[in-house]
C-alpha cells in the first residue's frame, strides 16, 4: 500500500477526504522502525506525537536492569500526545518495536499548518487525543473504585501496575 492508503486504513482517519490524507502523508515525518528499535525513551524530552501506522510496539518503564511491561499498542493508536500539546514534558515510558513497524511523527507546527489550510485533521487528532485522555482517566478512576469497595484481603494483585499502564501512556 502507498502512504496515503496506509493512513486511510486507520480508524483514526476514517472518512477524511483523500486530498487531506495526501496532505498529511506529505507533511508528516515517516519512520520505519526495525524490530527492537526504541521509538521513544523514558525520561527524554518530547515535543511530538506518533501515530502507529504498521506493527506493534511495547511500552515499558523501569531501569536498564529491570523493565516492567505496561502496554502493547498497534495501528491507529497515538503515542506521546501529552508531549505534543505541553511541549516541555519528558516521555513517561519507553516504546520499542516488537516487529518491523511504521509510524508518523507530528509536531504542533504540523497541526497548525494543517489548520491554516482548512484541513479537518487537527480537529480529528485533537478529538482523538481528548477521547484517549478521557478514557484513561475514567478507566483509572473506575478501576480504583472497583478495588476500594472490596475488602482489603480480596483486592486483586497488581493494581498499582495496571494503573501505571493507564496513566503513564500519554507522554
Amino acid at each position, binding site marked *: 500500500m502507498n502512504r496515503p492508503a496506509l493512513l486511510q486504513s486507520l480508524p483514526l482517519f476514517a472518512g477524511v477526504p483523500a486530498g487531506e490524507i495526501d496532505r498529511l502523508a506529505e507533511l508528516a515525518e515517516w519512520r520505519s522502525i526495525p524490530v527492537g528499535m526504541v521509538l521513544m525513551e523514558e525520561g527524554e524530552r518530547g515535543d511530538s506525537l506518533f501515530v502507529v501506522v504498521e506493527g506493534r510496539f511495547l511500552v515499558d518503564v523501569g531501569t536498564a536492569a529491570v523493565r516492567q511491561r505496561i502496554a502493547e499498542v498497534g495501528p491507529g493508536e497515538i503515542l506521546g500526545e501529552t508531549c505534543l500539546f505541553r511541549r516541555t514534558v519528558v516521555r513517561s515510558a519507553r516504546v520499542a518495536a516488537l516487529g518491523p513497524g511504521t509510524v508518523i511523527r507530528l509536531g504542533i507546527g504540523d497541526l497548525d499548518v494543517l489548520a491554516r489550510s482548512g484541513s479537518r485533521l487537527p480537529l480529528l487528532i485533537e478529538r482523538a487525543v*481528548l477521547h484517549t485522555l478521557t478514557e*484513561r482517566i475514567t478507566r483509572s478512576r473506575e478501576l480504583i473504585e472497583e478495588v476500594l469497595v472490596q475488602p482489603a484481603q480480596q483486592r486483586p494483585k497488581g493494581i498499582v501496575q495496571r494503573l501505571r499502564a493507564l496513566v503513564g501512556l500519554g507522554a
Partner: protein
Amino acid sequence: MTSRRPRDVVRELERSPYFRGIPETLLHPIAVHAELARVSDGLVFAERGSAPDALFVVISGKVDVLRPTPASDEPVKVSELQPGMLVGHVSALRDRPRQASYRAQGTVDLLKFPRDAVKRLLDDEGVLGSAFRRALIMALSNHLLAANQKLTTFIGDGKPRTAKETEGMLQELHDTLSGVDEQSAVSGQNSARDEGR
C-alpha cells in the same frame, strides 16, 4: 446565579492556567459561550449522578468535592478545588452523569459553559474550537501527569506497602485524576508557557 459581560469573562478566563496561553482574540469568542455565576456558601451546584449540563471554571473561592468512600455510602468531602480548576469536564466530555457533587465553600465565583456551548466549541473546526480543545487537553493531561508522578513515587522507593497505605494512595490518586491536588503540575505548565513566550 447571575450573568455578566463577556469582557469580564475574558478577564477571568485569562486567570485560569488552562486558558492563559490562548490569545485574547480567541478568548473573546470563547467567552461569549460562558457566563459568570456566583454561588452561595454551602450550595451544591453540580450533583453526583446528574446529567453533565455544564462545565465550570472555578474563579474565586474553594469548591468541596463530595463523593461516597469505602467507609461511607453517603457522599463526604474528599477534597477541594482551587481557583483555576475545572468542574465537570470529564463528565461533559463523556456525556455521562457526574461522578461527584460540588459544593461552594463560602461564596464562590464560577465561569459556566452550558452543555450546548461546550458541544459547539468542541465541534468547531476552526482555531476557536482548537484553542478550547487544547485547553481541555492541557487539563486532562495535567491530571494524568500528576497521577503518574504519584504512582512513580509510590512504586519508586521500593518499600513494601501495607493495605492501608495502598488504599490511601489509591484514594489520593482518584482525586488527582479528577483534577484535584495538581497545583504543582499546573505551575510547571505555566512556567513552561512563560519560557516559550
